[in-house]
């Protein structure tokens, strides 16, 4: 298809080339089978977690102490935990929290981190120094105390958890984007863009960031699991999700403690967590390849 495209002299005006870049990327993404499967699995899991609980008669806190921990059966597809609660239902409810925190906090971190890092890296000098020292300061502030303070002032609230996690996760993203931008802005095509008189905003968003997408997408796919696990850590400290509510992180943690006697309590939450992350990763790699203009030509 690429060989059929017209030679560069008679290319259509710039705006159309740009829109066709995104269309090309979409085409390339659709051809990447792993990425499509990953995306479909993610969409399916999300829908299942959102809609699933509406169709189930059991609730996540319904106990059956006589039953106790039971292996998977027809009545309880994925077995029950030590209190006789249905693991499948708890996984679905947990998925709402984990996918929610993973996607929301990562989105916050991605937006702030990319814009902040790009501005610091592009402008350089004193502005960069001040912005990056602020990042150092936020890095060093004690996270546990920050979360406790938030809880004290705003009460226990799951949205707060998202905000708190997003507020720390953007820092590394900002540093990664900054280092990429600093390296890219010295390259010839940016000098060319500047000599054409393009505005700084346009150079950053149209020319620099698209070229730094690889590390950004990869670090994003790394942030989502990190965020979900951070939530489990906070819940373990009593600052996150409280029982009887569950999240994938807390289910995995509880499962890890009982993995010798009741292995299914670790295997099922662990598998669904891994499945989600693998799908995300394949989708991320597919996106990276689809948007990589240079890579597409060889």
């Amino acid at each position, binding site marked *: 298809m690429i060989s059929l495209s017209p030679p560069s002299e008679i290319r259509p005006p710039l705006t159309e080339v740009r829109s066709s870049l995104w269309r090309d990327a979409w085409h390339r993404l659709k051809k990447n089978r792993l990425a499509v499967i990953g995306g479909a699995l993610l969409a399916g899991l999300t829908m299942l977690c959102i809609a699933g609980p509406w169709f189930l008669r059991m609730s996540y806190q319904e106990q059956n102490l006589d039953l106790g921990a039971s292996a998977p059966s027809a009545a309880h597809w994925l077995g029950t935990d030590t209190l006789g609660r249905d693991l499948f239902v708890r996984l679905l409810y947990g998925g709402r929290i984990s996918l929610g925190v993973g996607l929301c906090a990562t989105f916050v971190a991605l937006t702030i981190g990319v814009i902040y890092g790009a501005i610091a890296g592009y402008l350089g000098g004193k502005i960069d120094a001040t912005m990056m020292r602020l990042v150092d300061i936020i890095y060093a502030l004690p996270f546990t105390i920050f979360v406790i303070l938030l809880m004290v002032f705003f009460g226990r609230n799951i949205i707060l958890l998202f905000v708190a996690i997003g507020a720390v996760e953007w820092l590394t993203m900002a540093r990664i984007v900054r280092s990429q931008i600093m390296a890219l802005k010295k390259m010839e095509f940016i000098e060319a863009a500047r000599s054409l008189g393009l505005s700084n905003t346009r150079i950053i968003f149209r020319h620099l960031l698209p070229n730094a997408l690889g590390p950004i997408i990869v670090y994003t796919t790394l942030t989502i699991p990190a965020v979900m696990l951070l939530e489990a850590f906070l819940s373990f400290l009593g600052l996150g999700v409280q029982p009887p509510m569950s999240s994938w992180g807390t289910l995995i*943690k509880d499962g890890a403690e009982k993995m010798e006697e009741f292995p299914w309590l670790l295997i099922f939450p662990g598998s669904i967590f891994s499945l989600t992350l693998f799908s995300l990763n394949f989708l991320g790699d597919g996106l990276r390849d689809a948007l990589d203009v240079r890579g597409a030509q060889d």
Partner: protein
Amino acid sequence: MFRFIFRRLLQVIPVLFIIITATFFMVRFVPGGPFTAEKAIPPEILRNIEAHYGLDQPLGRQYLSYLGKIAHGDLGPSFKYSNRSVNEIIADKLPVSLELGALSLACALSVGLTLGVLAAVRRNSGLDYLASSLGMLGICVPTFVLGPLLVLFFAIHLGWVNASGWYTATDRVLPALTLGLVYAAYIMRLTRAGMLEVLHQDYIRTARAKGASEFRIITRHALRGGLLPVVSFLGPATAGILTGSFIIETIFQIPGLGREFVNSAFNRDYTLVLGTVMLYAGLIVVLNLATDVVQVWLNPKLKFA
């Protein structure tokens, strides 16, 4: 370069000052104090204890006297461990965390960099898929699962090492592996992404055209640019590894600083919170400076600004 480093080191002072100030007031705004106990202490005695530690003074004066003390290198007494100063606690626990951190980092870097470079160079080969899957597995499997799994297999079934503790050399193996493999996975993913970004570029083609060997192209030319994302990740990550991990230290019963870091916040051990935060902040600032220096060293087009 030395002027750059010197100027940046000067900036450490205001940065640390802001961090100390913010943390000092943050911990004080959290309800409860170091002497809030399950069994209530009679109010008169509580007042005496607080007067002994100067906690009855106005907050502003406490802040100033604290600043005066740390200017002399005295981090104050701990409020939770009787008769121990924060200096002693840190001197006691930091070496343990540093040792574990250094071992984990060595493991993470050797595994992560090797696999990352190999995966990028042999992109979309069986090796790449294997390395990438291992990397994803390392990220999916949290330390609180990997740790117990390793203990179950190597300590309980095979009996090669102790399940927990920090006495013999072999006690270091499992905790260092558990902590190191997680970071190895991150480093592997970031190295692969960074290398892929670089391997398309013209200067690599130039190097190939002039007949440089593939090994030389990768080690001398591609790695320079490909390591950028890893380097910026490593600054804060190293500070985190070296100051200890709460989860690892809990699983393996290691007397490190990571647990103090978290517990001090719950105990409202004000001085210990501030002491550990200061240590961590110092490491963050110095390591981020180090990564900035390494970045300029890796990229000949950048200059020390």
